[in-house]
């Protein structure tokens, strides 16, 4: 699927729908990822999916399925992303590495490996035509109907899992120690969250790009958390902001052809976050909202 074909009306609808679905999923998953302090692990997962995607592409070519088979790319990307996140706790236990060092090492090693594979694929003719050349910064125009189907299934799965495990995911995000004492399966819940995260990141990278996809996980959720409301409200808000920013990103990248979709939607999400912060700060500064009881109580109680 090349770029000129992507500008047709039907494909625009496919691209917009796919991106909106991805943005919504990213917002929902991001709310829990952010609360569980796993944002940087999300970035590791995104970057580390590159070698898996490249290998899956080569495997698809070799098997005659075509390189850009969404399910194959999803499987390959997920496997290498999971492998990288699995390495992180083990690396961080090494002398002098620490948690942040482990994240950095894992991310850069897997991404480096992926970059090498990607450049060798792109030097091949089929790679450039296959659509892997938009992988780093994303291109909604390259969204196919198969991609759309995959994103729709992913959205359903994410919603179902979050609905079923809502109270458990909330409990481990709010107070992990308490959840463990209650006997909730904290490790398994974290694995479920990681699986959702990896699936979202890998499914979204075609549109949002590997390098910036983490911003779509974090920024809409962070913006929603700035606003008051129950956990359900925050999740709904994050999903709407994610979908909205993704759609704006697609429209911008269709209007300005040199602008990659991922960069555009990330810019929208980042700008909205900053704007929200500024508006809230401004209102507090002007005293338009009387200081909340928490501010007053916090000061008195501290």
């Amino acid at each position: 699927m090349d770029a000129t074909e992507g500008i047709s009306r039907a494909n625009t609808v496919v691209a917009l729908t796919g991106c909106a679905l991805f943005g919504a999923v990213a917002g929902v998953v991001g709310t829990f990822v952010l609360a569980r302090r796993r944002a940087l692990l999300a970035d590791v997962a995104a970057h580390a999916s590159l070698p898996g995607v490249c290998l899956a592409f080569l495997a698809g070519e070799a098997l005659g399925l075509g390189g850009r088979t969404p399910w194959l790319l999803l499987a390959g990307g997920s496997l290498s992303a999971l492998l990288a996140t699995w390495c992180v706790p083990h690396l961080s236990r090494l002398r002098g590495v620490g948690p942040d060092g482990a994240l950095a090492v894992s991310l850069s090693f897997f991404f480096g490996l992926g970059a090498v594979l990607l450049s060798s694929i792109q030097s091949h003719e089929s790679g450039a035509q296959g659509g892997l050349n938009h992988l780093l910064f994303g291109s909604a125009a390259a969204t196919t109907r198969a991609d759309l189907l995959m994103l729709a299934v992913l959205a359903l799965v994410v919603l179902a899992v979050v609905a079923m495990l809502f109270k458990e995911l909330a409990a481990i995000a709010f107070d992990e120690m308490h959840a463990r004492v209650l006997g909730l399966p904290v490790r398994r819940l974290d694995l479920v969250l990681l699986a959702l995260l990896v699936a979202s990141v890998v499914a979204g990278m075609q549109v949002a790009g590997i390098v910036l996809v983490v911003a779509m996980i974090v920024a809409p959720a962070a913006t929603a958390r700035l606003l008051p409301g129950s956990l359900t409200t925050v999740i709904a808000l994050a999903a709407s902001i994610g979908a909205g920013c993704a759609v704006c990103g697609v429209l911008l990248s269709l209007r300005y052809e040199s602008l990659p979709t991922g960069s555009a939607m990330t810019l929208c999400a980042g700008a909205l976050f900053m704007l929200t912060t500024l508006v809230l700060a401004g209102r507090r500064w002007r005293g338009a909202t009387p200081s909340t009881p928490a501010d007053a109580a916090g000061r008195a109680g501290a």
Partner: protein
Amino acid sequence: MTAADAAPVLELSGFRAGYSAAEPVVEGVDLALRRGSLTALVGPNGAGKSTLLKGMLGLTPVADAGRVRFFGTTLDAARGRVAYLPQRSEIDWSFPLRALDVACMGLYSRIGLFRRPGRDARLRAERALDLVGLAASARTPIDELSGGQRQRLLVARALAQDADLLLLDEPFANVDERSERTIAEVLQQLRAQGTTILAVHHDLATVRAYFDDAVVFHRRVIAHGPAGRTLSESTVARVFGLSSAAGEARA
């Protein structure tokens, strides 16, 4: 120390816990709590009081699970009967929950996976909130609660769990007078109903007023018994002097 009619609710023998096997924070801890006792765990800063509670509950990387017995059995077999109240500062209070949601969390293991808290759970949580004087704040977002209210909310969550053993990490730390009084009353009521309570407490002046027994602790149990006798000046001077000599305690 042990009541004749019951096995200890909590029993540690030679217990060890901490963050590295080479240098455990607490070591050689022997302790037995009888049913219905209300005990303060006191000791200087850095004595390992919080680590002891966390270690018993398997929350530290190193913990001798085999050397802790809850109700004569393992923690896994006794889960649900043991409630834990972490230090208030260890919790993300900006999380978008209402007070009632947090109180309900005490019931999560009882409700089971995949299910939402029903009417029954909400009623129990509301009753727990009422007991700590937060009935009117049930729908209030937790980030709007004061420090003392937050502490009472954590007590309510433990109450909702209806546990037989309560392990509390500094329930009286930095709370207003009203919250302190309420929490003390609730603990007394629970004790009267047969609940066993062990609470990390740092205010030596109020130990005798709020607790029956005291454990003086510094990496291991130094003394354990009725609060009045245990907190004799010599014990306190020895333990707290010991640590200030080591430069670990604030004056």
